[in-house]
């Protein structure tokens, strides 16, 4: 069913994109270098598992969204195989995930049904278990589309994409305790240049700064892409701001103008650095966010990604551990590009390779030698027909070439559309998993 519908919808998409000079992508954030700074137990050696949050497809397997666990340790006899899958009820546009600060629980959101699923990955990292579902975020907060899950100490920031009133892009953040209780809400600013939109969250504790970015509302992200790009009014309703927040006070300090839907945000992890980078989907550019000489936070365009006129649609990005390189996936041309960030003021593309007919997510191991790529953007935005590949592909990276290591065909395995990825390890098994799981039920 999906193939025909998407094929028809996408028949004129590229032309439409070019004609309208813009469309938004809904990428996703994830890899070992983009985790919250409050997570102390990063996997700096060989990861054992890749958790994939997959969108259910009607008529395919059980049709439900599911968390898929893949064995990614080359030393394992089951390397490159599916170890486990946990379905949640129905299809809710599975999208992003985020670990709690202790890495024991993985929060995963649905953009359509606004449900948040909490998986216990600490008791048995090879076999995650669904332990709680939060279904009342819209009713309690007025926010819709839980997107980014960003760990705070003992808490989780959940960035919404939309709202219950009009399904537009004005939204906010909800703060939950690690046990899933709502603590507070924070509206995205709509004054002093703020458009009220939200997307990603990234924190620099040393600077007491939280950065947020902006995308679009439910009416747009749930709409068939072919229709959306023909609606000039709808295409105006994409975010064009980033916000600098006082982290301690959780108050907006400054709104930065970043046209073209700035999406994923990555801070440099190198000691002493205090800059972050993002990619604007509609305008296909890299933006640098850093303080100027007077300490005032500024955003400036520092590079283009591919040929913006062809709308390559940069989606997910992944920064390496020392802030010297950045992977950028571009959905439309299926390319994975590497930018040298030695001078973050002037990123230079040094490598590219077509890694799929459509590519969205990209994650890398801490040492950067292993790279994982997933295919799906949104159910209604993915390509159609033969271009609708749904996969997770593993690669090795030696600094010069991405070399295929394994591949899982998510359609062949009846798993659905492969979206967000997070890494897991046997070493993350916890001492008290059963007790904590009990409290979440």
């Amino acid at each position, binding site marked *: 069913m999906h193939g025909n519908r998407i094929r028809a919808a996408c028949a004129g998409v590229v032309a439409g994109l070019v004609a309208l000079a813009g469309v938004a992508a809904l990428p996703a954030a994830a890899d070992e270098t983009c985790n919250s*700074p409050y997570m102390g137990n990063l996997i700096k050696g060989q990861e054992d598992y890749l958790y994939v949050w997959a969108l259910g497809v009607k008529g395919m397997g059980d049709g439900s969204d599911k968390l898929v666990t893949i064995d990614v340790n080359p030393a394992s006899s089951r390397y490159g195989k599916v170890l486990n899958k946990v379905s949640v009820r129905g299809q809710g546009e599975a999208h992003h995930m985020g670990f709690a600060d202790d890495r024991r629980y993985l929060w995963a959101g649905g953009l359509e049904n606004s449900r948040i699923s909490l998986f216990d990955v600490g008791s048995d990292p090879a076999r995650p278990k669904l332990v709680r579902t939060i279904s009342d975020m819209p009713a309690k907060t007025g926010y819709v589309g839980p997107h980014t899950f960003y760990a*705070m100490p*003992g808490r989780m920031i959940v960035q919404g994409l939309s709202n219950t009133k009009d399904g537009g892009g004005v939204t906010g953040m909800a703060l939950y*305790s690690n046990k899933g209780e709502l603590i507070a809400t924070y509206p995205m600013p709509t004054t002093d240049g703020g458009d009220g939109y939200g997307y990603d969250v990234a924190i620099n504790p040393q600077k007491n700064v939280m950065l947020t970015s902006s995308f679009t509302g439910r009416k747009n992200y749930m709409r068939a892409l072919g229709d959306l790009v023909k609606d000039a009014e709808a295409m105006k309703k994409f975010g064009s701001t980033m916000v600098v927040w006082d982290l301690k006070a959780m108050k907006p300090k400054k709104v930065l103008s970043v046209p073209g839907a700035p999406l994923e945000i990555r801070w440099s992890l190198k000691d002493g650095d205090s800059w972050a980078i993002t990619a604007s989907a509609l305008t296909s550019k890299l933006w640098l966010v850093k303080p100027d000489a007077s300490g005032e936070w500024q955003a400036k365009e520092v590079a283009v990604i591919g040929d913006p006129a062809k709308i390559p649609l940069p989606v997910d990005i992944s920064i390496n551990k020392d802030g010297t390189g950045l992977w950028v996936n571009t959905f439309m041309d299926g390319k994975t590009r590497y930018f040298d960030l030695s001078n973050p003021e002037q990123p230079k593309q040094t490598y590219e390779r077509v890694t799929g007919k459509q590519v969205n997510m990209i994650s890398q191991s801490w040492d950067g030698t292993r790279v994982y790529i997933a295919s799906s953007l949104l159910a209604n935005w993915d390509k159609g027909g033969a271009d609708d590949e749904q996969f997770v592909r593993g690669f090795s990276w030696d600094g010069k070439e991405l070399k295929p290591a394994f591949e899982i065909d998510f359609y062949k395995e009846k798993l659905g559309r492969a979206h967000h990825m997070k890494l897991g390890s*046997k*070493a993350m098994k916890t*001492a008290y998993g059963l007790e*904590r799981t009990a409290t979440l039920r």
Partner: protein
Amino acid sequence: MGSSAPRRFAESRRTLSALLLAAVAAAAGDVVAGGVAAAHEPDDTVPAAVTMDFVPPPAGSYALHAIMPAPDGPVLDPDGRRLPLSRFTAGKITLLGFIYTSCADARGCPLAYQVFHAVRHRVAEDAALRDRVRLVSLSFDPARDTPAVMRHYAAAAAPNGVEWAFLTTERPGRLVPLLDGFGQDVRIEVDARGRPAGPLAHVLKVFLLDERAIVREIYTTAYLFPEVIVNDIKTLRLEDRPARKAIR
């Protein structure tokens, strides 16, 4: 949950307790010669894992939301008396952290210990806070951190007018609910065969509780700055009763 669940739960706790004890035993090699690494009186300048590169917002200019109630359960004071933890979490603004005395990770317990010292020093100098603030260090290594060991560990913390309680528990079964209630993780390093193979591993967390034992802030290595903590303590003191109700 079926009727057999409570029994399975109890069995799992016993198993975990045994595992924890085994891990503690496996970690025995880390004990400093002579028994326990005695606490050292540190400088007020704390070698924080992350440098504080900002001016924190003034006390009272922001809200500290109610995150969760602190758990309660029996603990042992340095004299071996069995008391409820609530005796040490209610009635004063409380800064609480889990430690184990043999911890050698510079960014773990020793860092927390130094930060506690720095906070205590600043609180002692403020007459408005001195009697309203308490520090609590609770061991998550009950097998080794006996009351006597905690008493020895605490000896270096000379009295300065600010209460600092060094507590432990009788056994892992008493500790687990407290860890669980605070959300303090502990991982046991295991070898390839799943056997305990190393010391306890944890993400350092420090909890700030209001006078009603409600957790109002949680700090970790990435955000463990004495100046911020003292500001937060002052923020709690500045709350008037109506404002507190609003925050709840």
